[in-house]
């Protein structure tokens, strides 16, 4: 198993509340969290893709992970809610500011495209409505082969009992098609009290139809795979990595390249197992 992560805490303009969420996550034993910027384009007018706030501007001193001596790792993530295929713009420069890229397709056609084609890390499964389509095996297997993961978030299920029903229905539907592979569980929490500990989330995974082992991987090893997938997305075939040397301190650069040194077969890294 790898360290526990919660790859979805919702960005809010209220910095102190966001800081409390991150502190609580560290206290609950999460070693990494991703701040999620949700971008929902409407068809009519053109909207700006949000730019992430730098982590060091957001929080001076990162809180220490419970029981450990290292600080929590904080990442930025963009989720594009798509109702039309034009909403996802491959190679958009704005996407590059984020560590993780996710899409939330709202129709079967878009879901298919997201699974098979889009260069993203995470596909979000809606938990606030009953899905208007069924999960088909083919696109799901396609996504699994490409190393893209599906995300189910649980905080809506804490907020509201109708949402809870949708969460459980949609999650169990997904698990039947994907057999528990490539699933991550995250909070999508807006407040600290909506976060739950990693072992709680693992237990909740059983409710969604995951096995004991898959449920624990959904908050640990699979999340690690997502991070590796995101890193390879920024590289050419997982081999060459370009970075703006003026912005990055030499120490940071080294840290980023380190994992690439250790694994020889580059082709395998895309799957990031």
């Amino acid at each position: 198993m790898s360290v526990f992560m919660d790859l979805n805490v919702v960005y809010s303009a209220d910095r102190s509340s966001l800081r409390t969420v991150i502190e609580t996550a560290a206290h609950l034993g999460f070693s990494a969290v991703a701040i999620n910027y949700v971008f929902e384009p409407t068809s009519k007018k053109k909207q700006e893709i949000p730019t992430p706030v730098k982590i060091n501007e957001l929080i001076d001193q990162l809180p220490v992970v419970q029981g450990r001596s290292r600080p929590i790792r904080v990442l930025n993530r963009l989720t594009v809610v798509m109702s039309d295929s034009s909403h996802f713009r491959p190679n958009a420069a704005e996407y590059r500011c984020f560590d993780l890229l996710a899409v939330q397709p709202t129709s079967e056609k878009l879901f298919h495209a997201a699974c098979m084609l889009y260069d993203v890390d995470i596909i979000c499964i809606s938990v606030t409505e009953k899905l208007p389509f069924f999960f088909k095996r083919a696109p799901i297997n396609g996504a699994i082969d490409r190393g893209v993961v599906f995300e189910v978030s649980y905080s809506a299920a804490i907020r509201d009992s109708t949402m809870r029903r949708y969460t459980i229905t949609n999650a169990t539907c997904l698990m039947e098609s994907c057999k528990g592979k490539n699933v991550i569980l995250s909070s999508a929490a807006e407040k600290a009290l909506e976060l739950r500990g990693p072992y709680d989330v693992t237990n909740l995974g059983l409710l969604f139809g995951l096995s004991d082992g898959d449920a624990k991987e959904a908050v640990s090893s699979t999340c690690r795979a997502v991070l590796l997938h995101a890193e390879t997305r920024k590289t050419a075939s997982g081999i060459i990595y370009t970075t703006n040397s003026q912005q990055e301190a030499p120490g940071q650069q080294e840290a980023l390249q380190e994992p690439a040194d250790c694994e020889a077969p580059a082709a395998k890294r895309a799957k990031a197992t």
Partner: protein
Amino acid sequence: MKPAEKEEESVYKRVVLKNASPYQYMKICLVLEDESTRLSAVELKLFIISGLRNLYGEVGAALNFDLLKYDEDTLTAFLRVTSRGLVKLWSSLTLLGSYQNQACAFRVLQVSSFLLSLTGNSRDLQLD
């Protein structure tokens, strides 16, 4: 059958019990938005039962669990539940998000098949 008879003569006996523990034990702590709110033991138990009913209906509300110990000042409690009921009880604790219209969360501090483990957890070791 000879070796077995021999064992009976000597005092040595060994029994292996696999997955036989009848109960599971949980150490939990309730965190409330308004930290001055106090709950009595009965209120806490009723609150947990309401969570079970919300998620699993009347069958869930009928799930038998015991509030072994409760500290009103820290809102920390020890629960005992039959092994088959653990996932149900735990998930309904996880999904409980509000107490009397204020946000709350149950922090599950430890879960074990043995009550003894709850007082002997090496992760609590603090050395400075």
